[in-house]
């Protein structure tokens, strides 16, 4: 990998004025993960990703009723969306079944192209629907639950170590002391607000970390 590619993505204030579009590549361009990567990243970091290669398309979880709302129940085998079970729910997004008239919502919300036309550069936006999906889509919640439970059960770790491990597994870096402090505070406060166990609060922390901006960025 070239040294240009390996640059930090920290933007210097003066560069933002001289070269706001980073045409001269003075820093690594911080990039949003694509729709497929957002989901795959959650599956992989939580240890749920099924790594098997190849085979027919699969139907992961999707909100009920999206297909039949528009077909009215007509249209043969494509009238109703019947999600798969078992490991088919956790395969790479590359294998997700694609119905072009009603594409998978979690892909469309994160700017995946409709596949109706050729796209060389994807749009990269932040929308409230993306925030809602990351907070409430059962796929992401399962990932957070899976990972946070696994780490929480590790009896040889102190709570700080657990937080660091969770954070590092999801974001691929150590939290600094300010961040660690905040994460600790959140754990305490959420436990009191919702009157939940430490384990449940740790799951809530997992959801929080999965929602961080840097979790869905390559930088």
């Amino acid at each position, binding site marked *: 990998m070239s040294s240009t590619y390996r640059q930090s993505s920290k*933007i210097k*204030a003066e560069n933002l004025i001289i070269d706001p579009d980073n045409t001269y590549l003075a820093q690594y361009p911080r990039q949003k993960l694509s729709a497929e990567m957002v989901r795959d990243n959650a599956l992989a970091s939580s240890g749920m990703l099924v790594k098997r290669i190849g085979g027919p398309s699969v139907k992961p979880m999707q909100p009920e009723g999206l297909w039949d*709302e528009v077909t009215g*129940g*007509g249209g043969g085998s494509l009238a109703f969306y019947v999600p798969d079970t078992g490991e088919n729910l956790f395969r790479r997004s590359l294998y997700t079944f694609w119905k072009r008239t009603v594409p998978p919502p979690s892909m469309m919300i994160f700017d995946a192209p409709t596949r109706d036309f050729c796209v060389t550069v994807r*749009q990269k936006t*932040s929308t409230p629907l993306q925030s809602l999906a990351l907070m*409430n889509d059962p796929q992401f919640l399962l990932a957070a639950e899976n990972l946070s439970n696994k780490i929480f059960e590790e009896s040889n770790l102190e709570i700080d170590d657990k937080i660091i491990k969770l954070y590092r597994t999801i974001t691929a870096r150590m939290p600094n002391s300010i961040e660690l402090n905040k994460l600790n505070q959140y754990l305490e406060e959420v436990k009191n607000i919702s009157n939940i166990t430490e384990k449940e609060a740790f799951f*809530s922390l997992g959801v929080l970390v999965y929602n961080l901006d*840097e979790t869905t960025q390559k930088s």
Partner: protein
Amino acid sequence: MEEVHKHFLNNNRRNFLKKAGLGIGGLALGTLMDPFNFGKNTDPFSSLGNKSLNLPHFAPKAKRIIYLFQSGGPSQLDLFDYKPKLTKMRGLDLPESVRKGQRLTGMTSGQSNFPLVNSLYNFKQYGESRAWVSELMPYIGKIADELCFVKSMHTEAINHDPAITFFQTGSQQPGRPSMGSWMSYGLGSLNNNLPSFVVLLSNGTGRPKGQPLYSRLWGNGFLSSLHQGVQFRSAKDPVLYLKNPDGVSASERRKMLDYLAELNQEQEATFGDPEISSRIAQYEMAYRMQTSVPETMDISNEPDHILQMYGPNAQKPGTYAANCIQARRLIEKDVRFVQLYHMGWDQHENLPTQIKGQSNDVDQPTAALIMDLKQRGLLEDTLVVWGGEFGRTNYCQGKLTDMVYGRDHHPRSFTIFMAGAGVKPGFSYGETDDIGYNIVKDPVHVHDLQATILHQFGIDHTKMIYKHQGRRFRLTDVHGEVNKNLLI
């Protein structure tokens, strides 16, 4: 290479934000471009649209629109385009001199003859405008003086998918942005609690399990997904992923968002990426939507006399009537574009029975919606459009019997109507021939209608352009004329 580079620059908001520099100033300017997120302005007609497009191009008449899409192709000959001559010519073959070898769908092209068929339903003239309306639409008849009928619509597509796509995106090929997405892109949002482009679906009683719709019809095409139509559903989650998971309270969510914002700000301080601010703002918008969407969808505070206006199905979630009330509520909250779809107009075989149920679905609620908007003073700057993707043939599909006939798709002439926002009330435009096959006067093409709708919003349809992969795109592509005859 240069084209690709320019494409990056085309990403207006990002570009603009970066140029505007870091910090609060940059954030404030950035949110102006964001259809979900700019502050409510006291003067919605000020030039708060997409700055780089200099929108609006001139003073708009319309601020919001409700498009009541009648999916499947309603039979204009049984609803609005009265043709007494068809009664005289019933059963006679459609003369070749009229059809002129025009293409038909595969569903009737094999028929050995094309017997003309009049409507089984009677027509009557209504109001001072003396508009002819069928007995299937008595409520619409009563408000005829509010409506602008276009009886000379024509389209290029003959099958549903390309025809609806054409109406929604200006192209028969899928992949272009929907009209609502274009408006969101060009004009931004009028509110900061709800999306600017909302979609509502209902199934008709006319022909259930008929022609399907496609969620890409309200897609953003090559525009940013910020401009995507957001479906409000009658399901328990009215917007996808809106509800917090079981056991997570609003206060817990609030706490999470507060910490999320603090941690993200920490990131922004380190990396200096202004996109992080935008991301924080989107989380706040999502949180507001969690309250504002259910609030809007909850019609329990609608008084009885209003519910009665919209008819017996008004309180049945997911019906056309219920969606009409939703549409009004969304318009009241300054959602710019409300797109309804009512399925079931594709009546090939048993049309007389099917159209009766189907008309009954929409007649009273549509009239109620228009009058409800009027009594609230909203019709002045809200455009209402009612219409399908094409019309139906004047000849019978299948066997013609006393009580039963069918009609095939007919792109050559059909009727739509509009109301409000500077469109001429009590007016009828265009004419078809005596047997309702060809247009004989004042044709209006789909692109003309689109150009005219955009015109009402202060948009010159030739100037709202988005450059994508080396080509300039607009809703009307390289076509369309504003039809000022339809306007006050």
